[in-house]
């Protein structure tokens, strides 16, 4: 699943999706391979991840000044708390040149292109505490749009459920399409008299599956920062797609007090529950030098210990889905 530019999630987190229905066996049977200081990433020591977004559409009147209301939101589509009056910076309206089923399929297959947007960049409405907005107040490239022009695009005779999908979304911040918190799909219909669209906590449904319990744990020396991770041999990423060369742009190591099984259950919150986090950019190449990892205060990665769980992840900076392409568990190993 890769979201297009207009739908990019925040990618600063180590992991943004959580596990549903998966868990570690918890019996200690998960294999560990002592690899010394040099980790070679492989499909066998990578976690697995999949996700599906569904966007149940509603039908509303066409060629009218629709009202959007997101004031009732208490959670975003990832289940995180959301305060609409203070936590949002922009509302968007997008028109996709795909019917909803195809849109969802393309979205989930990570194959959406800007060419699929009818109007790009999307119409948007900067927010300063508002919890609702009217369609005709939305801007295009910072410029007001006339009612007549809106009607050209919200015309059920042209943009039918069979050929297009409308989305209204709200996001944190004002970077267009970044950090979207909720989306509501809709169709316009000449016969409909509905003019109000309310975003609810279930407007966007995200299901996901992550698996940390089937991978081979990488055993590395304790207290050693001079580790490396080489992913040059990877063919398939955790999402089941091609592990394209040059797409990994950053790496992160996190330490957790939880077990892997517990982390699977809290996958969504990995970035927030880490007791220590170390990050590094990967400007080129396919080898991470762990000595480049720093925490938020600039402190260097000290190496791992035998307390809790250590994870290392690799993320794709230009991908719409921020789920790491690679992630594995590190354990101390004296071999």
């Amino acid at each position, binding site marked *: 699943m*890769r979201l*297009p*530019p207009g739908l*990019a999630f925040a*990618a*600063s987190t180590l992991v943004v999706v959580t596990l549903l229905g998966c868990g570690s066996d918890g019996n200690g049977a998960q294999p560990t391979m002592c690899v010394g200081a040099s980790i070679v990433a492989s499909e066998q020591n990578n976690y697995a991840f999949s996700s599906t977004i569904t966007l149940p559409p509603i039908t509303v009147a066409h060629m009218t000044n629709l009202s959007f209301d997101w004031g009732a939101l208490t959670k975003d589509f990832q289940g995180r708390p959301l305060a609409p009056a203070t936590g949002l910076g922009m509302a968007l309206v997008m028109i996709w*040149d795909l019917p909803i089923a195809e849109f969802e399929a393309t979205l989930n297959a990570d194959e*959406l*292109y*800007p*060419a*699929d*947007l*009818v*109007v*790009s*960049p999307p119409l948007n409405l900067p927010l300063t505490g508002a919890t609702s907005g009217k369609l005709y107040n939305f*801007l*295009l*490239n*910072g*410029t*007001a*749009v*006339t009612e007549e*022009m809106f009607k*050209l*695009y919200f015309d059920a005779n042209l943009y039918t459920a069979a050929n297009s999908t409308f989305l209204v979304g709200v996001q944190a911040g*004002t*970077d*267009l399409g*970044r950090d979207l918190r909720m989306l509501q799909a809709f169709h316009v219909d000449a016969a409909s008299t509905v003019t109000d669209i309310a975003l609810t906590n279930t407007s966007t449904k995200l299901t996901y599956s992550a698996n940390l319990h089937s991978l081979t744990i990488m055993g590395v020396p304790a207290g050693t920062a001079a580790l490396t991770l080489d992913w040059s041999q990877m063919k398939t990423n955790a999402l089941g797609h091609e592990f*394209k*060369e*040059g*797409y*990994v*742009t*950053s790496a992160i190591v996190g330490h957790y007090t939880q077990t892997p099984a517990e982390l699977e259950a809290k996958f969504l919150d990995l970035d927030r529950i880490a007791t220590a986090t170390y990050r590094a*950019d*990967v*400007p*080129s*190449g396919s080898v991470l030098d762990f000595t480049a990892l720093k925490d938020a205060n600039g402190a260097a990665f000290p190496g791992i210990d035998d307390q809790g769980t250590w994870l290392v992840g690799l993320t*794709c*900076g*230009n*991908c*719409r889905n*921020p789920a790491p392409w690679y992630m594995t568990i590190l354990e101390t190993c004296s071999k």
Partner: protein
Amino acid sequence: MRRICTRAVILCGGGLALVLGGCGGMAGGSPGTGGTGTTGSAGTTGSAGTTGSAGTTGSAGTTGSAGTTGSAGTTGAAGITGNAGSTGAAGTSVTGAGGCTITPSSSVSTKIPTVGIVTWSTSLAGVQSAKIDFGLTTSYGMTAPVDLKQANYRTLLLGMKASRMYHYRITAMTGGGVACQSADLTIMTGPLANGLVKPTVTTNNAAALSGGFLITGQYVRNTNGSGPAYILDSDGDYVWWYNIEDYVTGVTMDYAGTHMWINNHPPNIADAKTHRVTMDGLTAEDLSPELPKISHQLTVLPDETIAFYASDGGIDGCDDIKERSPTGAIRTIANSQKALGTTGQCHVNNIQYSKQDDTLVFSDHIHCAVAKIRRSDGQTVWILNNATKTFTGDTWKGSEHGIHILGLDDFLIFNNNTRLIAGSTEPGGTGDGSGALEIKLDLAAKTVTQIWSYKATGNAYQTDVMGDLQRLPNGNVVIAFGGKGIIQEITATGTVLQEMRTQTNFGYIQKRATLYGPPPR
């Protein structure tokens, strides 16, 4: 980042140089089979003759050997190697009368590891021109001119793919035609930067493509807050890149081919940035404070002046047309609203320089107009298409972006054909595909005639933002549906030869046959 440095001393002897005489084949080996040429040059890459004379008055080849036995050349010499080709291998250590040496050194840029940096010296006296041929094989294929004013004849090898071994060869020449040539040398390029998204390229007719390099930028935001300006080669491979802030739209090499001008167009134009970067990426000037609220793109004039447009700060957001001189002086030439004689909001989105009459041609998206103004005093020369037009005749709907000036009376215009011209009272287009128009002006009768058009039908090609185009020397047109992340190369009859798609959008484009020398437009 891998750096490969080579250093070698190459000797070539022979005193009586011929034009392009070369070192009689620095690669050594066979001296060639064809008695190539009697009066002219004896081949440029091959060998200059087999046994007899390797050319009579011409040169005895540049890379090959200059004859095998006997004298390689009748009136001249057997190349500067003198006995260049006595037994075939006129190779690397021939010592002829007046022998010369070339001492090269090479590395790749630490900022852009596909850019080779070659420095060299030669014992050849009176060098007046030089070049470096380079390519993936010893057939080379690309040529970098050497600027002899540069210290150590520092020369950049531009256009190389990442992580590949390239061959190169240095040739120095005197005014009298004496040449000195290195053996084949190699340089290894470094890896691509991570995070560059390779476009998907679909080629329908490779033989009909123009080839060359595409210069553009990534017109969306990256998760890491920076977007690349970049150059793709004819295979769609990255050969150059430089990251500035996100939403890169304008990427333009200067006339000298030594610098890249890069600017972006972020959602908040107050955040717009402009950078001038050496082609090796090692020196970058952030000129943003000098060019506040610059938008879309700029055009570079032959003397390194740039013409650009930036908000005048007025309520209508109209742009001033401005210039920045090489010394940094900023001059306002005209206000777009006044130049067009319009009212209301403005949205200038393209500017091009017309060298023939020292004018600037710009487009205003909201007013759906293209206008020409004089650089000298900002006076309007003509206005096309909108309510204040000064020429009658054919018009277009749905506004425009990129312009390619083909002459004083001939222009290509990217027609957005948008139905949604925010803030405009001009008529919208059909919204079912953007395209290209060629318009011909009758400057005396003040009329406009559309003489060619191309439309890519379908929503995928309907870009309401951005868009650019350029006619190529072979008559093809490259057209960028920038906001939709699609670039096509089409024939004059509209046949799509190649289509390139990206998930990250394109900015304005510049297509070049070579990355050296003046820009094509």
